[in-house]
Every structure is written in C-alpha cells, then in structure tokens.
C-alpha cells in the first residue's frame, strides 16, 4: 500500500524523479535480462554448502552425464550398423574408433602443438578484445557522441561472419598469425562492447546522485558506481566473447598452413581422416567450454555482492 502510493507520487512528479521508478524496475529486470549471467547461487554454492549442493545438484548432474552417455551409445550403434535413413552414418567413425585415434594423438606431441598454438592465438585475441571492448563500451555508454560515432560500425560489421573476413584479413595484415588473431579478435570484440554498453547504460540514477552528494568526482563515479554496476553485464559479455572467440578461431585457422586445432580439423577433412575431424571438433568444443568456465569463475569475485543477495 505504502510503496504504491509513493510510486504514485513519483510518477506524478517531473523527470528528475521519474527515473527512480525505472531504476527499481531495472533492478528486478536485470536478473532476468537476456545477457546477464545467473546469480552466484549456483556457482558459489559448491564450496560453501557442498552437502546441500550434492543433494540438489547431484541428481541433476547424473541426468546430464547419462544424457551424454546415451548419445554416445546411440552413435556407436548407428555407426556400427551403418544407419542410413536420410542421415548417413556410413562414413562416420564410431566413438570406439575415435577414442582409439584420440589415444594415439594424445601419446604424440603434434596434437599438443595444435592446441598450444590455438590457445596462444585465442589468448592474444581475447585480451585485446576485452581491453578495447570494455574501453569502447564504457565510452559509448557514457557519451552520446562516442555512441553515435562507433555504433554504426558495430551495427554494420557485427553480422559479418568470421569466415567472410578471411580474404581481407590476409590482404590487410602482415602475417598469417596476425590475420588469424584479427579474425578471432573480431569475434570476441562485439559481445564485449555491446554488453559493456548495455551495463553502463543501466547505471542507476539514484546511485549516481548518491555518489555526487557524497562528494564523488566524475572519475570516482565511473570507478565506484558505473563500472561495478555494469559488471554483471560486462562479465556476461566476457563469457560470450570467449565462446565466440573459439568459433571464430576455426575460421581463422583455415588460413594457417601449419598448426592450430582449427587447422588440424580442416586438414583432417582434406586428408579424409574422419576420426581426426571429430577429435578436432570435440577439442574445440571442450576448450571453448573450459575457457568460458574459467572466465566466469575468474570474474566471480567481482560479483560476490550479487551472490550474497541472490535470495533477498
């Protein structure tokens, strides 16, 4: 009753206060926003309440693992029996054959070189994308000028798939390595920028006013209010960016004549080494997932305030 009548006051009042209500709505909306990561309850819980976690999440993980195992069994059966109803499993190696090939790869050193080269490229591309993306995103979120100047480029370039950049990347950049890194970088850049802009633009007006009335300078407001407020969205962008970096990498590594897990996959196709294709694909999937997980875990300390209040 009371909060309602207060809300009424605020709506009736002119612009200065109108944002207050919007802010409240935003905070509730934030939790369910498309790009916002889930609250820490699921990520923080294991270390704190492992007993409870095991009870609630244990059965769910059992289901997840079982689902994967069932798929592998079906695949094995389909391959061994030459399943061919519209989808053809004739030429697809069975998991047992892929597994054997993987063991061979793991005992050699070549496979690790592919992985190392890819990791290096992703690391370089990602770091540049994060630094540049967050800087541009903050600038765009804070300044209408910056947004108006940069946004058209983003709108235009973002839908272009990584593969389409290959010719230009080769023409414009000095080395193969730099072309691949550039393509990977582009993939990671856009989600980081857009999520940062989104987070910065959601800055609560009341909090900015509170900070100003406490004597905070513009720089202090940016550091103490805008950035931490945007952090959930930025972290979501970092995680998405990492995923996109991995799948852009594959496109980039088509260029490479030597190493890289994308090159490995592509080359196996050329050489008709079917088990290796699948090993390459799953390695990219696995590494991408692992890196995304690391980004999320690494960013957790920045969001611990959210985790604690997750239930209130």
């Amino acid at each position: 009753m009371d909060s309602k009548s207060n809300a009424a006051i605020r709506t009736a009042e002119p612009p200065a206060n109108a944002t207050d209500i919007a802010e409240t709505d935003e905070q509730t909306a934030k939790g369910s926003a498309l790009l916002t990561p889930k609250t820490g309850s699921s990520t923080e819980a294991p270390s704190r309440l492992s007993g409870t976690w095991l009870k609630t999440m244990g059965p769910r993980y059992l289901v997840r693992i079982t689902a994967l195992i069932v798929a592998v069994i079906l695949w094995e059966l389909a391959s061994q029996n030459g399943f061919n109803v519209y989808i053809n499993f004739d030429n697809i190696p069975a998991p047992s054959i892929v597994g054997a090939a993987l063991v061979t790869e793991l005992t050699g050193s070549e496979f690790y070189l592919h992985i190392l080269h890819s990791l290096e490229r992703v690391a370089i591309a990602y770091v540049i994308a994060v630094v540049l993306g967050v800087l541009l995103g903050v600038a765009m979120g804070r300044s209408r000028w910056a947004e108006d100047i940069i946004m058209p480029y983003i709108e235009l370039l973002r839908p272009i798939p990584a593969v389409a950049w290959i010719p230009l990347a080769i023409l414009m950049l000095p080395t193969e390595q730099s072309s691949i890194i550039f393509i990977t970088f582009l993939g990671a850049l856009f989600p980081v920028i857009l999520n940062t802009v989104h987070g910065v633009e959601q800055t609560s007006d009341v909090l900015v006013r509170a900070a100003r009335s406490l004597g905070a300078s513009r720089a202090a407001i940016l550091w103490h209010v805008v950035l931490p407020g945007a952090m959930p969205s930025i972290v979501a962008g970092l995680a998405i960016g990492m995923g996109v970096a991995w799948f852009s990498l594959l496109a980039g590594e088509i260029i490479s004549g030597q190493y890289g897990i994308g090159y490995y996959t592509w080359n196996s196709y050329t050489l008709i080494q079917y088990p290796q294709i699948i090993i390459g694909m799953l390695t990219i999937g696995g590494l991408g997932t692992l890196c995304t997980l690391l980004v999320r875990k690494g960013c957790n300390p920045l969001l611990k305030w959210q985790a604690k209040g997750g239930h209130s």
Partner: protein
Amino acid sequence: MNDALATDNRLAVLDHSRLQAKSGKPGAERGRVSVRDVDIVFETATGSHVAVQNASLTVRPGEFICLLGPSGCGKSTLMNTIAGFVKPSQGEVKVDGKAVTEPGPDRGMVFQQHSLFPWKTVKENVAFGPLMSGVGSQEANSVARTFLSLVGLAAFENAYPNTLSGGMQQRVGIARALANYPSVLLMDEPFGALDAQTRIMMQENLLDIWREFRNTVVFVTHDIDEAVFLSDRIVVMSASPGQIIADIDVNLPRPREQSLLTSPEFMALKRQCLDLIRQETLNAFKQQNKTG
C-alpha cells in the same frame, strides 16, 4: 526484524570534537538554508510543466523542517534544488550564504530506497563519503564504524546491502549521509517504503540521532503524522503548480516519543494539516478531471 534500538548508549561513540570543530564555536551558524522566489519549470514533450512556483523558504541552523504535500506537489523537486540536483529556472537557493550550483558533501542526502551501493559492504558504503573527502582509508573506516554504531548496525559492517531489511538499509543510508558531518541533512521520504511499525521506530531513532547532531534537517514526506511527530516546522505545499501554502510551527516538547501521537496537541496540529492537504488534494483531483 530487529529495528528496536537503545541508541542512547551508542551516541557516546560519536566524535564530539569533530562535531564541534566542524560546527565551529557554539552559536556559530551552520546549516542555514535560504530559498528565494524559486520557480522550477520542466520542459516536457507536451509543453512546459511548472513543478514549483514562487517558493520562498528560510530554514534556521539546526531546525528540523518537513516539506509536506500531496502527490506530485513538487516537494521532492524543491528539495532537489537544495541538494543541487535540479537548477531552479528562477530565483536562487543558498546554503550558509553560498549559492547552490551542484551537489556537495555539506548537504547529505537520504533517498527513499535502493540508494546504497550494492557492491559495497555496509562499512564501505558509509566510508565512501569520508574517502571522497580525501581522508585515508583507515580513517574513513573508523568514521564508518562510528556512524554504524550510531545507527545500531556495527555488527553488520561486512554485510552487503541486499542482505539487510529495508529499515536497516535506510539506517545505513542515514549513517552514510551523516558520515560527512553535513550541515544540512536532506531526506526524501526516507521511510516511505517501510512498514508502519518500522517507520515509527525509525522516526524515534532519527530524532535521537538528530538531538545529538543538531544539524539542519529538511525532510520530505506526504505522511502528516510523520511531519508533525518529527519537525519543528511544517511547510505545506499545494499541487500543480507546487506552491508553499502554509508554514506551521510545531511547538511540541522534545524529546518526543510515540505516546505523543495520541496527545490533544498533536491531534490539533494534525487536523490543521489534514484540512490543508485535503483541500489541496481535492483541488488537484478537480484539475486532473478537467485536463483529463
């Protein structure tokens, strides 16, 4: 909810020397607010909207006044000009002789809700003002602890705001605003979102703190009981355009307690305000019907 407090014991922790040093020698004027012929006009899509018209008001140092009025009468807007968030279209606002041009730590703000930094612990929130004023983090933390004790939340210094109840959050908000030793405390319906029981407790708590602090308080509310219970003076505003229509002295003895709420003197003042507000609300309704 544990909002009951024995504030008196905790007041001992307040840094009296600092309070004295800031306020100068006894009798020194600090916290005089003067609003002269202020108009506030907002340009909206549908034309200009006069939020406040011809408002003049003087608040004496150490006075506790309430701006009381119906929804949308511009009382928050008027206070926001004292805070420095809204520039008057006409007229001028001065605090201690200095024209207000922007927000500043000499005017502490307490907002209705959701104004604590959710990513800072309770202690970091309160320490923010002192930190911004340039003191070291140790000093800022010790000031923060002092003020958290003052509002009875010392035990929660490491909690994050969204683990606290609404009443506790507002107490942190008050501690944070006071930690800069402001000469004026501006409160924008600070208890409006709290339940009735908590609100009364918070009001008593606020008066206890203010008795010690003795700074000027401008308190915006639409709750008549709250205005009469808290203030030395009630400034009643009318709606669209927001104008000051009455200035009522509240000569009830202090310290005030909940029992005051049923005394005849309290009732008489309440009746007076009620009549004014009722008339204004009716006028506002009439106008809305005409335009709508």
